[in-house]
């Protein structure tokens, strides 16, 4: 079987914050390839640079040095408009749900489609409802975030991230704000949905109970990425 084009191809990536005396290198010589459909987990202590790497991959930050290709497109030296386009291809799930408090669940999910000009108004409304149904919130389309539980809110966030069928889902400690049972359910849901869509996942977590969903686990330590821990070696 020929290996498909990697969704993410990173090599020799470095990143530093600040200038001059204040300059602090937080990522060193990162190399990482992720194939389409793969589920990769990233672990590592707090402050080791996981979020920084995720924001670079998601097009939220300019790449300073090395090479980062997303779907074959080089993001090092990319324009602001290139980054906007890259962001539209990526679903991002944050530690907090970050739902808009003035929008209903359906309206929040719809925001994930509105950014793509090809969807009509009717289509957006329909897809948003379908997606919420898939995450088990078909009965709560018109609820506002403050009427939903933490797990439900994170499921709306997942629906919002996946509704436009992105090629890549980035999740930064998505279970950190949830109790372990809810966290587990949310991650399992994320895994199923992404797999059905053929979506690639890169997920940062501290939660050892969810490591089993991974095809592969990478480990960040002081800005250096350690590789190729086989997922089953953890168990």
């Amino acid at each position: 079987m020929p290996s498909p084009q990697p969704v993410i191809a990173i090599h020799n990536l470095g990143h530093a914050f600040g200038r001059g005396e204040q300059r602090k290198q937080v990522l060193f010589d990162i190399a990482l390839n992720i194939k389409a459909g793969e589920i990769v987990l990233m672990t590592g202590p707090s402050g080791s640079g996981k979020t920084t790497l995720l924001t670079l991959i998601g097009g939220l930050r300019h790449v300073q040095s090395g090479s980062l290709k997303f779907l074959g497109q080089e993001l090092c030296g990319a324009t602001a408009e290139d980054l906007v386009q890259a962001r539209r291809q990526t679903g991002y799930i944050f530690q907090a749900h970050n739902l808009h408090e003035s929008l209903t669940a359906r309206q929040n999910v719809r925001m994930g489609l509105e950014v793509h000009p090809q969807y009509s108004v009717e289509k957006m409304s329909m897809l948003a409802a379908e997606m919420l149904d898939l995450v088990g919130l078909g009965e709560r389309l018109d609820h506002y975030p403050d009427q939903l539980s933490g797990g439900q809110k994170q499921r709306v966030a997942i629906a919002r991230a996946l509704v436009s069928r992105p090629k890549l889902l980035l999740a930064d400690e998505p279970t950190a704000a949830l109790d372990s049972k809810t966290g587990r359910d949310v991650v399992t849901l994320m895994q199923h949905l992404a797999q059905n869509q053929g979506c690639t996942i890169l997920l940062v977590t501290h939660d050892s109970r969810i490591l089993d969903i991974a095809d592969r686990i990478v480990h960040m330590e002081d800005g250096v990425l350690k590789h190729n821990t086989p997922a089953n070696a953890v168990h």
Partner: protein
Amino acid sequence: MGWLNSLQRRTPLGWLQLSRHKGRLLVALSGIAFADLLMFMQLGFQESLYESNTQIRAALDADLILASPKAETTQKLSTFSRRRLYQAQDVPGVASARALYSNNINWNHPETNEEASLQVMGFDPDYPAFNLPEMNAQLYRVKIPDVMLFDRLARGDYQQTIAQIENQQWVSTEAEGRTLSVRGVFSLGASFGADGLLVTSSQNFLQLFPRRDPGSVSIGLLHVEPGYDPEQVAQALQDHLPDDVEAMTLDDFIQDELEQIQTESPIGFIFTIGAAMAFVVGVVIVYQVLSTDVNAHIKEYATFKAMGYRHSYLLTIVIEESLIMAFLGFIPGLLLPMGIYQVAANATALPIYMTLNRAATVLAMTIIMCLFSGAIATRKLQSADPADMF
């Protein structure tokens, strides 16, 4: 068409954000309504004061006016040659052309003996110069030397004097070295330049000011024959007469004074300051609400950016909110002053009422006010950076 389509697809976030927080919206709308109310009061009183100061001209009984091109306000009319009045009668459509003399005078207050500045106007009492029936019914009296009629609404402490005159107890006082006898009152009103008006015959006027040349008149009062258009006759007069005199309709003559007062009087400046302060109050209140709203949603906005929305999308949310607040706030901001105008008009006898023009002006100012606040509030959007927020 592209933008129309994208407008249709767009989630009305500004409206949804505002309507979700009714309390915050109510504060904003009351603030805007309050600013509008202040603006309407300032502009309303300003205009009514202006209007009340054109009352002398507005009361003139004429279709057309001849005046010197050097004429400014009614207190500074300058003069032109009486020959122009005779020449004017040659122009087709002119039925009559009569002289009105005007001058400022200091007289001694009949009771307190203090000096007061009044305006005197002289004209042929057989041909009333004003559209004031009360005055016209008493004009026969000014045919007697040194007899005057006086404005009952003159500024100053004249109640007793006026009561006396109304009881036909004539009041005498000194002015320009002559003894004047006031034998009647009429109602007109004070103006910026003069505390009140005295009217008398041309002869009495010229005796009061012996150095005044009878051939130099202040205003020409013209009537137009039926079937003639005053505008066209004014044009014909302008073409026929030399440049040392101007012909215009009475309305233009009134408008002219309005513009003089607006540009020259310090009162206009004070009202402008008042309206500007109302504007600033509005800007501050709207800015408070908008910046609170931006701060409250900064994480959501950063999330939108992470989803691939551009900065301009966030700008349109704030602009949308600004416009919604402007239009919603304007509704109570328009209705409230209409009620207060009614009360003020009854209380002050000033001609104060809502005009379409003023409503449009204040609406425009409200929109500018809200957009201005919105523009400042959008600076807070800069911190909606998804890279540093999560």
